[in-house]
């Protein structure tokens, strides 16, 4: 139950800059997720915290302690590995007891701690099993119990669920979250699955090319992305290249994408003409319900995908492809290819990004 402070951390593998100027503070008891595409440096950062890599620059603090030169085995971080890394030559009990024996705890206490760790992950009664007789999900529970048993200062997870099937993934995800909250332990969780990140995290750091793009609670990351990368990586979004034009009254400005014309928020866009307009599929309003007439559009349906709670529709308008969603669809609601679909994009749902830098253009004070 410790905070983690990372300042100015940089890590190179030869020429490759795997981490560049990482600055993070992870609070006590927080569930903190590193989210990003493959190869962006998530694992590298996690392993640097665990002490398997030594950063080339910068400092890492666990609570009040500067741990730059503390070897991995003295850091007291409990790591849960992607491929479980359960010792195949030990029973479940021995696996969980391993770290406790290393710490030379009295036998009595080892037994109690193993028991309670196994109870936490619902593996009571599996003590004598060997790992080859466990399912993937059970093995990962052993991995989790083993990491928790040492009462680490922080728990580190490197894509712990990616080898499990979809249903088990959801189950284990909720369980990890529950156990972490119950123990109040600080957790750093690596994933490339944005849905997983949104569900499980207190806060998320979106990483790309070894750099932190944005840090914030899930809601903030989704609803208020700071750049085009975060907007496109987290959730689905429509993005159109636009040219910004004249003012359209209070706080609005024209954005022209070929023949399509939008009214978009003008705050922050003063010095920009070439931009990217983006909006999420679920933010559109179907015109028959729309009171205001702003950003009314009409597209030709290319294809539909029925996803249970929503129908996702791919439309063609003026040479652009746009995806919109209709919620709680009824059978009659599902149009056929070639049909015209009318909808509106509320101006306040539009994000504007600088075309060159990808940075979000918005009012200075945020929100």
């Amino acid at each position, binding site marked *: 139950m410790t905070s983690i402070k990372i300042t100015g951390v940089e890590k190179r593998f030869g020429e490759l800059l795997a981490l560049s100027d990482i600055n993070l503070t992870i609070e006590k008891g927080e569930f903190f997720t590193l989210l990003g595409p493959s190869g962006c440096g998530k694992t590298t950062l996690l392993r640097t915290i665990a002490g398997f890599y030594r950063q080339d620059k910068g400092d890492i603090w666990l609570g009040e302690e500067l741990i730059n030169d503390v070897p991995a085995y003295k850091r007291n971080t409990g790591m849960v*590995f992607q491929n479980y*890394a359960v*010792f*195949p030559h030990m029973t479940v009990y021995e696996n969980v007891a391993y770290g406790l024996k290393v710490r030379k705890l009295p036998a009595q206490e080892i037994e109690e701690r193993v028991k309670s760790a196994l109870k936490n992950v619902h593996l009571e009664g599996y003590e004598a099993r060997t790992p080859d007789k466990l399912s993937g999900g059970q093995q990962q529970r052993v991995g989790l119990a*083993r990491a928790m048993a040492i009462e680490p200062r922080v728990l580190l997870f490197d894509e712990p669920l990616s080898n499990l099937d979809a249903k088990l993934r959801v189950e284990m995800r909720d369980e990890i979250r529950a156990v972490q909250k119950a123990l109040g332990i600080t957790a750093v969780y690596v994933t490339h699955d944005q849905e997983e990140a949104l569900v499980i995290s207190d806060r998320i750091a979106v990483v790309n090319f070894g750099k932190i793009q944005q840090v914030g609670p899930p809601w903030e990351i989704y609803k208020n992305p700071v750049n085009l990368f975060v907007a496109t990586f987290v959730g689905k979004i429509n993005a159109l290249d636009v040219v910004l034009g004249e003012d359209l009254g209070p706080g609005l400005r024209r954005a022209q994408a070929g023949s399509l014309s939008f009214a978009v928020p003008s705050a922050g866009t003063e010095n920009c003409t070439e931009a990217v307009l983006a909006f999420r599929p679920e933010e559109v309003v179907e015109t028959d319900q729309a009171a205001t007439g702003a950003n009314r559009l009409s597209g030709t349906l290319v294809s539909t995908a029925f996803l249970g709670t929503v129908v996702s529709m791919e439309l063609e308008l003026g040479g652009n492809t746009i995806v919109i969603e209709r919620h709680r669809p009824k059978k009659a609601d599902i149009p056929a290819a070639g049909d015209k679909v009318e909808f509106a994009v509320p101006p306040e749902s539009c994000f504007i990004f600088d075309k060159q830098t990808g940075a979000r253009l918005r009012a200075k004070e945020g929100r």
Partner: protein
Amino acid sequence: MNLRGKRADVWHLVTFIGFAIVIIFLIYPLFDVFQYSFKNKETGELSLANWKEFFGRAYYMRAFGHSMFISLATTFFSMVLGIPLGFFTTRYKIKGSNLLTTLSVLALLSPTFIGAYSWITMLGRNGFLRNLFSSIGITLPPIYGALGIILADSLQYYPFISLMLAGSLMTIDRSLEEASENLGARATKTFFSVTMPLVLPSLTGGALIVFMMSLSNFGTPMIIGGNYLVLPTLAYNMFTSEVGESPGMASTVSIILMLCAAVVIVLQTWASSRRKYASMLVNRPVVKKLKGAKAFFAHLICYFIVGLSTLPLAVIVFYSFRNTSGPVFQPGFSLNSYKQIFFDVPKTVANSFIYSLTAVVLIALVGTLLGFVIARKRNLAVKLLDPLLMIPYIVPGTVLGIGFIVAFNRKPIFLTGTAIIMIMTYFIRRLPYSVRSAASILKQIDPALEEAGINLGSPPGRTFRTVTLPLMQSGIISGAIMSWVTSMNELSASVLLYVGRTMTMPIKVYLSVADGYFGTASAMSTILLVVTGIAMFVVNKYFNRGSDTFIAA
């Protein structure tokens, strides 16, 4: 782990010891071999006289030609024997195929000279088979010379072919052949256009191993070669003969042997690098059940091949129980030969066991540690050490023996006539196998397991002991047993290095044959065979290791 620890850890020490071993026991003696070859004996100046003589005199070139001929012929006949056996036992249901495999492996691992010696008792000047054939009017050609060497070598080494072929045939996914048939190819077309190309690399690999083993084999040509000299026996003679002894020429011959071996190793590495076809095995190949005449012939061929290679071993065992009086066989059976061993030369038996066991402990220990360094700590020094450790692969026993005699018969390291030099010979010859096998076992152990240990608070040394080592254990032990067997049976280097009190069983067999004491030789060989058999059984039974272990040995 890329933790740049500032303290020198235990793995630096291991690397250092690795270098020390390589320098003292390989580079230093081999350097002497080079020196002898390139220096004028009288003046001590650099000279190519030895090389000119080698390439200028028919006597030497002939031995070179002999070696090439023997190795090629052995490779050819090994394939003739090995391919049908490997193919039939994997693709057709052959009754007792496990027994066949076991017996062929026994022939492979038996001391090299046993086959030669046994064929002499059968087909030598007064051999019982020769007499049998001449009694029905057939005169067999003389067994001494090329014929005998090729016969004994082929019957010993063909399992390399059959085992490697079987190994790769069993890992060809059935769907590949089914796909071919599905696309309209007949069975024969499928065999030649799909199956053959897939097994070809491992067949090539097996053939190269046979070539190499036969090229560097010393025991067989020494016993059955007569006047037919090959490179290893030539080097031995040049080095030891009382008249006209010439260490310079012996060294030159040695270097030529090593060059040939190096070429073969390069080819073999190349062949095995192309062997990675069928790694993701989904559907095991089908084993067909044959009927009628086909079944009969398939069985006949398999049993004939294995029977032929087991025959020499059986004959030896049989002879060891025959009644003897001195060197002469008498009618009837007795344990005289065994009694003689235990009364006359118990020390020889003890030596063999003590030296090989000591060597094996060292081999397993050092090999495992070096294997770990090579698999997990690839820094610059280790990258340099890795190929150096493989030198023994290309150093035939005879050459190593010559190097050791020269290098350790003077200050600063004086080892001539000691047990240590025998043990170190075994140690060095087997070390690369042990290092390789430890490294390859480690490559199959997920490094995340070690990281998990460290992450849970266990320092690197303790993690190695409690996590890595237990996982390597069965591989190490079965490898050690194979090292033990080959060390027990080592002749080519130790025959140059022994003195009376450091005599070992293979050397005694060799000398007994030379002196005509066939009874003792048989009994001694039988003991070695039994030891070999027991070791194989243990490896198979308790470590669940397939024939691969034996090929690697």
